[in-house]
């Protein structure tokens, strides 16, 4: 089961990275990594990068101007991050964060956060 799940994650993460490249008009060719390495690296890397989000985004409380990200799906995260990458307004902080992530890193992070959100919704 784990291998199946991991393969599914690889597929989704790679698909998302590809989508980001498409959105940016960048070539798709650069992201063909081996499935096994990609699964291990991307899942773990997503978790490590997501840890940095927690410096500003409260895990549960969204009432104080900085929105919660714990319930967002991956498309919403990617779209928001691409918008933040493109413009310094409305947030210096998110502009800096978005610029620091490669497409693959952003895909891995969005996937990781979305998986956490899904796990949280299960009874």
């Amino acid at each position: 089961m784990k291998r199946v799940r991991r393969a599914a994650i690889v597929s989704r993460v790679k698909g998302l990275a590809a989508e980001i490249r498409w959105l940016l008009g960048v070539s798709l060719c650069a992201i063909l990594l081996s499935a096994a390495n990609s699964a291990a690296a991307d899942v773990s890397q997503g978790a490590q990068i997501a840890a940095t989000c927690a410096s500003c985004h409260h895990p549960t409380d969204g009432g104080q101007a900085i929105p919660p990200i714990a319930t967002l799906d991956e498309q919403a995260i990617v779209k928001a991050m691409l918008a933040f990458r493109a413009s310094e307004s409305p947030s210096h902080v998110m502009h800096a964060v978005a610029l620091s992530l490669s497409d693959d890193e952003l895909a891995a992070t969005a996937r990781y956060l979305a998986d956490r959100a899904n796990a949280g919704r299960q009874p």
Partner: protein
Amino acid sequence: MTDWTRRQIGGLAGGAMLAVAAPHFVRGQGRAKVVVIGGGIGGATVARYLGDMKSIDVTLVEPNSTHVTCFFSNLYLAGLRSLASLTFGLETLAEGHDITIIRDSAVAIDPAGKAVELRGGTKLSYDRLVVAPGIALKFGEIEGYDEDAAKIMPHAWVAGPQSELLRQQIKSMDDGGVFVIAAPPNPFRCPPAPYERASLVAYYFKQFKPKSKILILDAKDKFSGQELFQDAWSRHYPGMIEWLPSQFIGAIKAVDVAARSVVTEGETFRAAVANIIPAQKAGLIAEKAGLTDASGWCPVDPVTFESTLQPGVHVIGDSIVGGDMPKSAFSANSQAKACAFAVAASLTGSPQFPPHLFNACYTFLAPDDAFTNALTFAPEGGRLKTVKMFISKVGESPETRRRTALHAVGWYSAFTADVFGGGS
């Protein structure tokens, strides 16, 4: 509401790494042991993230049961927050994040024997040690300014009783008095903070003691966010704050506690209340353990935060030679996470990725006027270098500044929950 907590993030991160990385400690005879010295922002963060991995025994050594945050303590000085709202118990770390907390101080480190000796006599062995001692104040560099003098002329650069003392003095000062801030030379904890302090105390004076003045005697000729501060001072507090750089007054040489005066090379300034912020260096245990270089700070590998002087010992936070990274709580938190993953990698064989290091500071000019900066850093040539930097600009709309002040309050709540594992 959601079940997504940071405990789960850490747990999954650890699990994912362990699942793919031949974790020799888990498969072997015992769990790896990490000792963390210091329960401030860096130490609490690294302990929490390592503890959440569930694969490493984490012991945090800290003499105090609570931590009072330096960030936002200028709001307390201005009467805009209570000290209780800035105080966090370390018990949430112990209870929720699999960390053993020992209420004691480290007095010696033996890197060769991989052991730490505590004041109470306990000896702790470790596989990896993380030292997060914060700053020590260089008492004695200003003649007459020692720990006793700080009871009359507080530094308030470590939040807690010193903040209470300074708040009390500001409150009891007569209208028309002069509040002197002696600002330190670089590098020091939280570069914009002396000037944020001047701004917020001016806000308090404007309401309750409008004839009072604030005089900043600076050991430097420029400071962080200078244009933003000076713009705000002219808008909010015209004529109230005077900044005197080193080139005008010379170095701060001495204080006279009895006269409450500050003596520079060229002049003597009498104060009603004097806030003396001395030069700083790494916390004392770092110096004692041979972790500091000639600068007084701890050189580290910018990827793993392992000391370049003592193998197996990592150093994070204000006490390191930070390169371009400022000495701030945000930097310490960011370094602590990179360090936690690097330590886990070294102990479990888990994959290691280039660290993502950030600093974002919210600085108050008035309760509804705040600015931000945001910086990213990357290791380059053995040091931490700025990659990108964005900062608020002079002339932003009042609405933008109000929103930034709101963000600051939200950030404080999230950040302290991240560090201490609870809500604020």
